[in-house]
């Protein structure tokens, strides 16, 4: 048979497109199978329309395209915005035991609780550049806790709006957010920010690959802390965090940032949801409120090693090891103005699948006026400042997206009576 040679790329493209459309459509049909596309392409090879290489290319690329469309959930029968919407969330079951010294006699009281947390988020994309994301969660108005305690004769807990924001991504390197959103500040730990806090205001996140091994990033935000009558009186904060991530080698990564936090309208006022105990220094004059400004600066860093002990031998099962740290300094007070944390982790970089595991240790010291007592991790001495101590955490993937966690905190006050606290939590978290 005489071979037919087609040089016209347009015709080949048309054939490719037809086959791709056919294949994608067939992927959603239960009656027709991919093998029929293979037969069609094979016939075109036999006729000399396609070379064997082009046939391989077409079949493989169309199969991969079909996989992608399936993963995206694209279906011709559903409206586009439904296809671009996804639900996400988690449920956590917790047992917590807590013992804190109550006074100068150092007599301690025990408390144990069974607690639950449920979070549900809905994310939709009106178009490629905008995302609307909103979530509800258990919990009251406390921004640092989504837990509810099982109590009051099966009393029903509250549900709150946890976050709601619009995100605009005009370029691949820029994202702008408005509303109440996930904290845009990168933190290697929770010395300064409880992970439940979703700040409200506007924020921008920028990132750019400066060199093949170096990525620059900058996070900045303007957060409203309270709304009061009067134009210039509202307490607000703004923050800038320039940083970089450097792949030192294929297995070593360093990520670091400088952090600046500025406040306005804060001095002389007192914010809601302070820690228990309240620890920042307050003015003694009749007007009260915060005695100091909290314009602060600091740094965050993490050094990570992939497969730190190689791929062979007894320690080959350890996929990641990292060390991290955090520092904050408030220049306004003359003392009690620094905070720092150092920690290390070993195991999986992130625990999400079956048999993933991680052990983490952190030691921290946060002086009384280094930082506002409305922000730190609420599990560490009630989220107070003027504290020091350590946390040990073990996480293990029981199944994919089912995580078992044991967490122990030992903390105490820095000034006056130490009033030590021991807190033990064991969780099972189901993510979806």
């Amino acid at each position: 048979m005489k071979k037919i040679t087609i040089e016209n790329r347009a015709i080949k493209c048309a054939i490719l497109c037809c086959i791709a459309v056919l294949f994608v459509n067939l992927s959603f049909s239960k009656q027709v199978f991919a093998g029929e596309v293979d037969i069609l392409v094979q016939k075109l090879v036999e006729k000399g329309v396609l070379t064997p290489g082009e046939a391989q290319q077409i079949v493989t690329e169309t199969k991969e395209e079909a996989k992608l469309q399936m993963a995206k959930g694209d279906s011709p029968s559903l409206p586009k915005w439904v296809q671009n919407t996804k639900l996400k969330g988690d449920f956590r079951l917790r047992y917590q035991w807590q013992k804190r010294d109550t006074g100068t006699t150092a007599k301690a009281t025990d408390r144990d609780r069974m607690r639950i947390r449920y979070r549900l988020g809905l994310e939709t994309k009106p178009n490629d550049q905008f995302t609307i994301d909103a979530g509800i969660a258990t919990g009251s108005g406390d921004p640092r806790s989504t837990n509810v305690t099982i109590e009051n004769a099966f009393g029903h807990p509250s549900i709150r709006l946890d976050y709601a924001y619009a995100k605009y991504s005009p370029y691949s390197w820029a994202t702008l957010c408005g509303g109440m959103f996930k904290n845009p500040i990168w933190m290697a730990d929770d010395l300064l920010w409880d992970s439940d806090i979703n700040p409200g205001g506007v924020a921008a996140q920028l990132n750019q690959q400066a060199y093949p091994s170096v990525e620059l990033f900058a996070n900045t935000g303007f957060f409203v802390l309270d709304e009061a009558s009067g134009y210039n009186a509202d307490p607000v904060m703004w923050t800038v965090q320039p940083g970089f991530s450097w792949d030192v080698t294929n297995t070593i990564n360093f990520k670091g940032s400088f952090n600046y936090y500025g406040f306005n309208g804060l001095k002389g006022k007192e914010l809601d949801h302070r820690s228990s105990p309240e620890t920042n220094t307050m003015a003694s004059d009749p007007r009260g409120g915060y005695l100091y400004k909290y314009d602060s600066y600091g740094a965050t860093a993490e050094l990570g090693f992939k497969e730190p002990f190689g791929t062979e031998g007894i320690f080959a099962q350890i996929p990641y090891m990292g060390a991290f740290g955090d520092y904050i300094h408030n220049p306004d007070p003359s003392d009690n103005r620094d905070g720092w944390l150092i920690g290390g982790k070993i195991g999986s970089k992130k625990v999400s699948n079956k048999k993933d595991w991680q052990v983490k240790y952190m030691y921290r010291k946060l002086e009384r006026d280094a930082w506002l007592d409305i922000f730190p991790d609420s599990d560490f001495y009630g989220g107070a400042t003027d504290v020091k101590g350590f946390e040990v955490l073990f996480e293990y993937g029981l199944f994919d997206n089912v995580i078992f966690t044991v967490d122990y905190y030992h903390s105490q006050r820095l000034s006056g009576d130490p009033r030590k606290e021991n807190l033990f939590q064991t969780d099972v978290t189901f993510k979806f």
Partner: protein
Amino acid sequence: MNKIMLKTLTAIFVLGSAFNLFAAESNSITIKGSTTVLPIAQRTAEEFMKKNSSINISVQGGGSSVGITSIIDGTTDIADSSRPIKDKELDKAVSMGVSPKANVVAMDGIAVIVNPSNTINNMTKQQISNIYIGKTSNWSNLGGSSGKIVVISRDNASGTFEGFTEKALDKQRTRPDALSQASNQAVVQTVSSTPGAIGYIGLGYISDKVKSVTVNGVECTKETVLSGEYLLARPLFMYTNGRPKGVVKDYLDFVLSAEGQSLIEKEGYVGLK
């Protein structure tokens, strides 16, 4: 509040402008991933840059998994991969708003190699599988001279490892005492210097230093790979986020052109034209 708002917007503007300077220099392409595809990327990138002096292409290895992770987290323009993207990776990509588009640039065969002194010339898929999962440990069991089989494998970030595990071992686990190597060259080097060794490499790395055995009676060649006759054949990919655009498209068009495919053949791989 307005003063602070002004400061914040100024900070966003200044930082945005600074980042835009980097973004404006988008006449650069970053390629990361499979060590099997690495020679293709290097050779075609060199030629492409000669023809387009204003464009800079950075090519790195690391393995297929590294490449695909990088395209998902946005740290590369092109992900080289010697295996198709996994469902789990695809789900993660989609959840992050990334659409990994498969661009097949060449075909490759995974050749099974032994030391040239070995008398074995052909192996069945079952025999290869038995060696790699630990059921067979002596060459005499395959009709060769008595001697321990030294099993050479690839690190698990490698697409060649993934392809071999899927096609030759039916996804069974490689024996834990197999010596893991980081590149095709390292496998060739080890097998050529170890009389009882067996390894597997991309077709492009076959050389006189090692002997490529036939698998189920079929030799690993360009023709058998393209026809699908050779069992351990696979497509090689350059993944992009969505359909390639701009300089990335120009580069991929060059890779798929007659000239680009010719360069790929010179590197020992199987061109598509």
